[in-house]
Each structure stands twice: as structure tokens, then as C-alpha cells.
């Protein structure tokens, strides 16, 4: 990963904010800027220096698994940022990502640095992270390849009697076996549970007639994949077919509306109108998609955002009918000048299929 470019871009932002230093507390931004994946630690950046400030638990990781930063190790359970800023002679204006710094921490910093103006900069690194470079796209493509492959492999196990929890475990195991660094979340929602957009897998066993909606992903080289596919086990009803085909058409329409310069509102509208026209508007009650990289971050596919070439976004409409079940279809891809380059190649049948029916 080109950490040098990223730190340079953040320094340019610092210049734009007229600050002499920046504190980055958000975990995904820290990993983005220097590779550090520990769960405690902050990046403190001046024009000349870049410090990764953490405690003894992460000393080895800070030394061996970061690039371009000096590890600075302090005592556990202590607030280490003010000391670091003082030692760096950080100057009178310091920006910080206020969306990741609690009020309590900020008060400690203010008390410890009375002469310093702490400048809140929510989402400080987001504009830089929003545009993926080739290394990142490669990592996300590989994460998606692993997820796609596992989706194919799991088809034979989506049978009556299989439990949601067991299927979720298998998705995790298989992704790890295929080289993922970690498995992401896994939503396996069968039958009536598929009506919950963010269902947590339970011990419910799949039954004939169930929708089985699977939303999962993995982490590869720090980057996430994210895929949703929905199948039916056994005979589908007319209604189930109707719901599926509507979501499919909406998902295609959403992808087709993506291009550099499109607004989140426009793309959402393109998908949502398909669902509304079919009479299911009330049953699609979440946003169309989100930005993604090391974690979820802007731009999202919702009103208030504009898409640009290089953004990684998901397109994931759904219809959820309490008591009956729900369908979601999701791809992850990159916004291009003229369209949407999906990184998800898992088969996306236009008609509702049984597990593996397309194989």
C-alpha cells in the first residue's frame, strides 16, 4: 500500500485547515495511513513527523507491522496524546477526527494543552479514503473473489435442517480457508427471519419454502468484501418470485445509475422507484448502499452524497415483509467515469433460484 501518498494527502489537508498537526483516532483511518491494526493507539502527525502512539500491548505490532511511522510507547490505561503533541512541539492549532474522539478524551486533551487550539475535523481522512488506488482495488477484488467462491461452495449446504448459525460458521471457516485474513459479519436469515434486514443468525433450521438471505464478507489485506444473495429452498410461491424479481430489477437499475458525478439521491431513486412502482415502497426501508474500504465510510448511496470515480460502494436494495420473509441482492463495486464496475462476480440470477440451481 502506498502509505507515503496517503500521509502526504493528509498533510495537504492539514495545510488547508491551517493546522500544524493532526491526531487521527479512527481505527480504519489509522490502518489506512500506516498499516497499524491494533485496537488501541492514535496517529499523531506534524508536517515533519508521524508517530503511532500506543501502549506496551502493541509495541511489537507498532514496530513490525507499520510503515512510515515512529512507534511511541506509553503506559497502559493512560491518555498519551497530549504528551506526544507536546514532545513534537506541535504548534498552536491541531486538528483531530472529532467523530472518533469522545467528549471525555477531548476534555483531557484540553486540560493538558491549554495553549493549543484543538480544531474538530469530523471525517478528517474520509475524503482521501473515498478514492481507492489500484492496490486497494486489488485487495477488495481479492476479498470479493474469496467471498464469491465461498458463496458457490456453500450452495450444497443450504438444505432443510441446516441451521443459520451453522451456515454462518461455515461461511467464516471457508473464507479463512481460502486465504481471507479474517471473516466479516455473516447474516444468514431463513424463512420469516429474512424479513429482518440485519438479522443475527439463530439456531433456526432451514425449511422447505424458505427464503434464505445471506449477507456476508471477509477481510483481505485490511479491505472488506460485502455480498448478499437470496435463494429459495424448495418450491417458491408466486409472491416470493414477484418480490425477488422486483429486487433484482431494482438492483440492476441502481447499478446502471452509477457514474462519477451521480448523487446518492439519484442512484437511490433509480432503484427505489422500481420497488415503489411494484407496490413495495414501504417494505424497502433502508438506504440503497454504503461506501466501503477498511470499514464503512462515505460516500454512501443516500441523499447528501455525490459519487466520484474510485469510490467503492455497495448497491443493495431489499424488500422485507414481516411474517413472510425478505430478499436483498447486493454487489460491491467501484464507481467509474461512466458507470459501475462490480467486483462481485457471484451469480446473480434474474429469477429466484434454489441453492446452486445455476451451477
Amino acid at each position: 500500500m502506498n502509505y507515503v501518498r496517503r500521509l502526504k494527502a493528509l498533510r495537504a489537508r492539514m495545510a488547508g485547515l491551517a493546522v500544524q498537526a493532526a491526531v487521527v483516532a479512527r481505527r480504519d483511518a489509522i490502518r489506512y495511513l500506516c498499516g497499524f491494526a491494533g485496537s488501541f493507539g492514535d496517529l499523531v502527525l506534524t508536517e515533519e513527523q508521524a508517530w503511532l502512539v500506543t501502549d506496551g500491548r502493541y509495541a511489537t505490532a507498532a514496530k513490525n507491522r507499520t510503515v512510515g511511522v515512529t512507534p511511541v510507547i506509553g503506559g497502559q490505561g493512560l491518555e498519551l496524546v497530549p504528551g506526544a503533541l507536546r514532545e513534537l512541539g506541535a504548534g498552536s492549532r491541531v486538528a483531530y477526527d472529532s467523530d472518533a474522539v469522545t467528549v471525555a478524551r477531548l476534555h483531557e486533551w484540553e486540560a493538558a494543552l491549554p495553549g493549543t487550539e484543538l480544531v474538530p475535523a469530523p471525517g478528517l481522512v474520509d475524503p482521501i479514503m473515498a478514492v481507492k488506488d489500484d492496490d486497494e482495488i486489488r485487495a477488495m477484488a481479492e476479498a470479493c473473489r474469496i467471498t464469491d467462491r465461498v458463496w458457490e461452495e456453500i450452495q450444497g449446504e443450504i438444505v432443510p435442517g441446516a441451521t443459520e448459525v451453522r451456515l454462518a460458521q461455515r461461511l467464516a471457516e471457508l473464507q479463512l480457508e481460502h486465504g481471507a485474513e479474517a471473516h466479516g459479519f455473516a447474516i444468514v436469515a431463513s424463512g420469516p427471519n429474512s424479513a429482518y434486514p440485519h438479522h443475527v443468525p439463530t439456531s433456526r433450521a432451514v425449511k422447505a419454502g424458505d427464503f434464505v438471505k445471506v449477507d456476508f464478507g471477509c477481510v483481505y489485506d485490511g479491505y472488506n468484501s460485502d455480498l448478499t444473495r437470496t435463494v429459495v429452498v424448495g418450491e417458491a410461491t408466486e409472491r416470493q418470485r414477484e418480490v425477488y424479481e422486483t429486487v433484482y430489477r431494482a438492483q440492476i437499475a441502481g447499478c446502471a445509475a452509477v457514474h462519477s458525478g451521480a448523487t446518492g439521491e439519484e442512484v437511490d431513486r433509480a432503484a427505489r422507484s422500481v420497488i415503489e412502482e411494484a407496490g413495495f415502497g414501504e417494505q424497502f426501508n433502508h438506504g440503497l448502499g454504503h461506501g466501503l474500504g477498511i470499514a464503512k465510510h462515505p460516500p454512501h448511496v443516500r441523499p447528501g452524497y455525490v459519487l466520484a470515480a474510485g469510490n467503492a460502494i455497495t448497491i443493495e436494495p431489499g424488500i422485507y415483509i414481516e411474517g413472510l420473509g425478505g430478499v436483498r441482492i447486493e454487489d460491491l463495486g467501484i464507481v467509474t467515469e461512466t458507470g459501475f464496475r462490480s467486483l462481485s462476480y457471484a451469480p446473480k440470477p434474474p429469477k429466484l433460484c434454489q441453492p446452486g440451481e445455476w451451477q
Partner: protein
Amino acid sequence: MRTLLRLAKFRQRLSELGADGAIVTSRENVAYLTGFSGSAGTLVIAPGRAYLVTDGRYEIRAREVAKGYRVTLGKSLADVVNELPGRPRLAYEPTHLTDSRLSELQAGVRRAELRPESRVLEEIRAVKDPDEIALIERAAAIADEAWAALQPSIVPGVTEVELSNQLEAAMKARGASGVGFDSIVASGPNSAIPHHETGDRRIREGDFITFDFGALYKGYRSDMTRTVFIGEPTEKHREVYNAVYRAQVDSAAMIAPGVSGEDVANKAREIIKEAGYDKYFTHGLGHGVGRDVHELPGVGRGTIFEPGHVVTVEPGIYLEGWGGVRIEDTVFVTRSGSRPLTTSPKPAWPSPPGTVDG
């Protein structure tokens, strides 16, 4: 409804602090008070009413689970606060609410007064109700069972990561929804690093291997550590291990209602000091466990144990470059004493994998 009892206790505490209500943004605290554990959920608690503010992804789930709360979608926190009558004084959580969210709130809120109050729910959560104990007990049993199942795999040649993956799979196969935290498997010289990052080292004869792991079960976590030895231990191995063993057992045995955490911590330290290794016991004795893997009460100064507390007792000795030992149980403080919830065999001397007593 357990969650509403907890809400009542929270309201009482708030009124003692002079607040009319609260804004709760910490995910664990929202789950504690409502049973709702989605990634987007905030509570606005006011006299006579309580709101769960979330988004469309969680609508059905929230309505089903959060009885007694008005589920509100598509509104900002400030909007909801502005619907409250009068000039309510609302406590927020300074250790959880981000600076940017507070700024947004302050910009949008018209009449309410927002004030920081730390640790209110954390202190309430330190005393577990019977439902919670049952869940932590299950999380502990899952960890114990997975530990037993792992023993045959702990052989020279296997890597730390292979063992940690097997342990995770074994916990999930027994009903865990996940791991309590990233498992630590630290072999040979790595066992001298308390928070070693489980890696590719292959275990071999002469190794201490420390396993620090726990299960996540229905929102609650367990935490335990066992150290095994491969091969013939030297006198030094025996001395170091047994000092940790006695420190763990004797300090845990002291825990009972009314006992001070400082006394318990000092006991463990004294035993290790007597053996000559005080300088190498480089962390605190333990921490509270529950929804979070580290929570109140602490095991040290400032704590007087009460029935319902759940804490870890985990002394260790770490000799850089040579190896280390840590032994840990999750302990529940009962009305009359305490008992460990993690009950895996705990030999008094360095022992090979699969040792059931000794």
C-alpha cells in the same frame, strides 16, 4: 421485564445526580437497557417516556425487542430531544459520545440542558442480575468445553494460529455467537508477552504455552487463561508456574462481599514477591467482565466486592526471552463468598495438555 427494571434503576440514579433523563449512545448500554443490540441505536430517556432511535434496517427488530420504548426512525437525536416538554436536564456519556455528535446535538437542541455524567450505567452494570449471571455462566462453560476439546491438538509442530482457530471453532460449535475477544496463544518465548499477537510460531518441547480466550454468548463474555507445558519442566519452570498458581488460587479464594479489591490484589502480589518474581508480574490482577470484556468493578483499590460482581483473577509472571505463565478464571461474587464460573482443570505444577488433575 428485566430491561425495564434496569431502566428504573438508571432513572433513580439519574435523579440522584440531579438529571431528568439521559441520552445513551454506547451500544452495550443501549443493549443492556432495551435488549436491542443493533449497530445503530440511541436512547433518549425522559420523565415518563423513553425513545429508541434507530434506522430502517432495524425497525422490525427494534419494535419486537425493545418493549416499553418508543421506536423512532428517521429522526435526528436533536429532533427527538426537542419533542420533550420543558427544559429537561439530560445526562450524556462523555466516554462514549463523540465530540462531533455532541456538537451536532448542541447545535440542534433548543431547550434541553446537556451534561456529562460518567460511568453511571457502567456502575449499575457492575452488579449482574440473575439473567446475566446465567449467560456469563454459559459463556464460561462454552470456553471450558472448547478448552477440553482442544487438548489433543496441542502437540509439537502445530502453530499458535492453528490452535487459536480451532479454539474459536470449538467455541462456536458449542453455541458461542463469537469469541469474547481475540484469543491469545503464546508459546515459548512468546508466553513472556502478556498480549502477544497470536502468530505462526510452531510449538515445541520445552515451551510454556499460554491460552487466553473466552466466548461471547448472547451478548455476554467469559475470560479464562491456562498455561500448559510441553516436555520435562525444569526447576525454574516449576517455581514460576507454581507461584502464579498459588497467587491465583489464594487471591481468588479471598473474594467475598465486603472484601476490598486492594487486599485481593496485594495478596496475589505478595505470593509472587515471596517467590522472587514481583518485578515480572507486570499488570493488574484482573477486571470486571460482562457485556464488555473489560468493565467495572476493577480488581484493586477502590473496589469493595458485592454480590453480583463478576471479575477475572489473572496473575502472571513474564520473563522476557524465556517464557511466562498466566492462570485466569472468571469469578462470580455470591451472597456469601465467590465461585469461579470457569472450571477447567487447573494443575498446581507445569503439566502437559490434557492433564485433568495435579
